[in-house]
């Protein structure tokens, strides 16, 4: 062998240097540590800070006079908070379910060797690129019964057509769902499409030979295999639902009344608009605990399984 390769033995035989060894061992951890440090300080540190603030008399700026539980007891007596929490439940569950269902349906439809798939896919996907600062006004107009969909349909001759949810305290939260679904469902569609494309076509052929109808094929064979895509979609959607702020501000500003208040808007309004930072911090704490209650078991199970 020596005849065909240069000698590299000398390199490998050099004496080991303890410091370099240590560095080599620790390098991956060193690379990870800035991110970890950032997250520990700027996420978890801030969470602790907020938690602390929720027990203080902070108003316009943080202040450190201890107030005990009074911010929490006030928080639970504020009706808008109840509204915000129940709205998040309605909004969050509808948003996630509809986005997943619609995303999956569109992905399946788009997976049928569609002409111009690329174009249609881009059309479905583009809303994700826009912020509600951009699309808010268009949506507001569209939903406004005076000039939007209702007016247009009526001008076509269907005089009794009514679509005034955005003006109706009981229904307004659903218009938020419509706009939110509009924004994200294309993205979810892309995730499912990717999942579908990853499925082995052999399995589908086998199932077809077994006589499965298309419906059975998707229900029994395809959709169960999309579980990872569902999981990724869930993380993204849950994260969007919790952070939904621009959306509400752009569409309804929390109204009519407080009908479309969400915890994020509530927290912002108490912390910044109303100068009651203590209550804002208390609401943030509750919100975080709720997020943790849902996300921690999920993240835990996901990561454990993967080992």
């Amino acid at each position, binding site marked *: 062998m020596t005849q065909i390769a240069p000698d590299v033995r000398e390199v490998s035989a050099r004496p080991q240097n303890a410091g370099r060894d240590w560095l*080599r061992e620790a390098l*991956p*951890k060193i*690379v*990870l540590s800035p*991110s*970890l440090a950032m*997250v520990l300080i*700027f*996420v978890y540190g*801030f969470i602790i800070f*907020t938690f602390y603030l929720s027990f203080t008399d902070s108003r316009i*700026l943080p202040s450190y006079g201890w107030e005990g539980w009074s911010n929490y007891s006030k928080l639970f007596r504020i009706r808008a908070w109840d509204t915000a929490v129940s709205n998040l439940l309605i909004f969050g569950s509808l948003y996630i379910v509809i986005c997943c269902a619609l995303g999956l349906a*569109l992905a399946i*439809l788009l*997976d*049928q060797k*569609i002409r111009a798939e*690329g174009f*249609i*896919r*881009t*059309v*479905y*996907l*583009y*809303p*994700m*690129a*826009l*912020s509600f*600062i*951009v*699309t808010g*006004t*268009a949506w507001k*107009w*569209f939903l406004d019964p005076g*000039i939007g969909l209702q007016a247009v349909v009526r001008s076509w001759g269907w005089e009794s057509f009514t679509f005034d949810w955005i003006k109706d305290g009981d229904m307004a939260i659903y218009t938020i769902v419509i706009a939110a679904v509009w924004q994200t469902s294309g993205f979810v569609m892309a*995730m499912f499409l*990717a*999942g*579908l*494309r*990853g499925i*082995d*076509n052999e399995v*589908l052929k086998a199932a077809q030979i077994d006589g499965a109808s*298309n419906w059975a094929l998707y229900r029994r064979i395809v959709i169960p295999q999309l579980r*990872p895509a569902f999981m*990724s*979609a869930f*993380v993204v959607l849950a994260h969007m639902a919790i*952070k939904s702020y*621009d959306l509400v501000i752009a569409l309804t500003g929390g109204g009519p009344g407080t009908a479309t208040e969400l915890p994020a808007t509530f*927290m912002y309004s108490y*912390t910044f608009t109303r100068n009651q930072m203590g209550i804002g911090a208390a609401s943030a704490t509750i919100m975080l605990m709720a997020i943790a209650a849902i*996300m921690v078991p999920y993240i835990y199970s996901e*990561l454990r399984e993967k*080992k």
Partner: protein
Amino acid sequence: MSSNATATVVRTGAGSRFVIYTLLILFCLYYLLPLYVMVVNSLKPLSEIQAGGMMSLPEEWTVAPWASAWSTAQIGVEATGLKPFFWNSIVMVVPAVAISTVLGALNGYVLTKWRFRGDTIIFGLLLFGCFIPFQMVLIPMARMLGIVGLAGTVPGLIFVHLVYGIGFSTLYFRNYYQQFPTELVRAAMIDGAGFFTIFRRIMLPSSGPIAVVCVIWQFTNIWNDFLFGASFSDFDSQPMTVALNNLVQSSTGVKEYNVHFAGAIMAALPTLLVYIVAGRYFVRGLMAGSVKG
């Protein structure tokens, strides 16, 4: 990673294909409608808008609102249009996206190929960080930026986006690299490549698809961010979204909806462009890992 990139083998009859196309087109309309409203109204004179009919095509086509939004609309004291802010956004977004993508890639690399005790917990911590509401961190973040002297600077703003973008970029790259054969890394180790050499020579060249996903995601989020942009920028570094907000949200005075719409589309153009150009790689990138396992 060798996924089948073709459409399904499931066969459909002519009747159902008609239904499928009809549905797909209907949904195209649903998704395009707001954009249609914006485009149409950005090409009308204001009087037509005020006369009503938001859905109707302009009777008189005009690009004046676009010109105005770009260079003469009132953003602050000076009627500068959105032009100067465009550059501010670019200067901030490009490094933020680049750094956050590279950092995410490195993290994903460590978390999948250099595993150590406790790495899953660290990943869990990073991931949970995605869920923190931004409104909550505003004040403490401002304080920290002040302490390190980055308040009101572009690097400060980049840093903030980096911190809160790191969770998702790590998630994307980790899931992708999990599918990446560990044997390649081992082969390179035996070949004598070190930590960074493996990353640079072996991992990065194969990371194209997921990098597209990550860049799209980060670019969209950072470009569209308003809260951080408004709070942590300075008079000379306000990003596009803040300017757009100033254009659209002016409290009193006549609302020039056509100019607003033109400005809104303009502010969205870079992200739209990213989606249109990179969109075809997007599904591929998602496919190559991020939605699996």
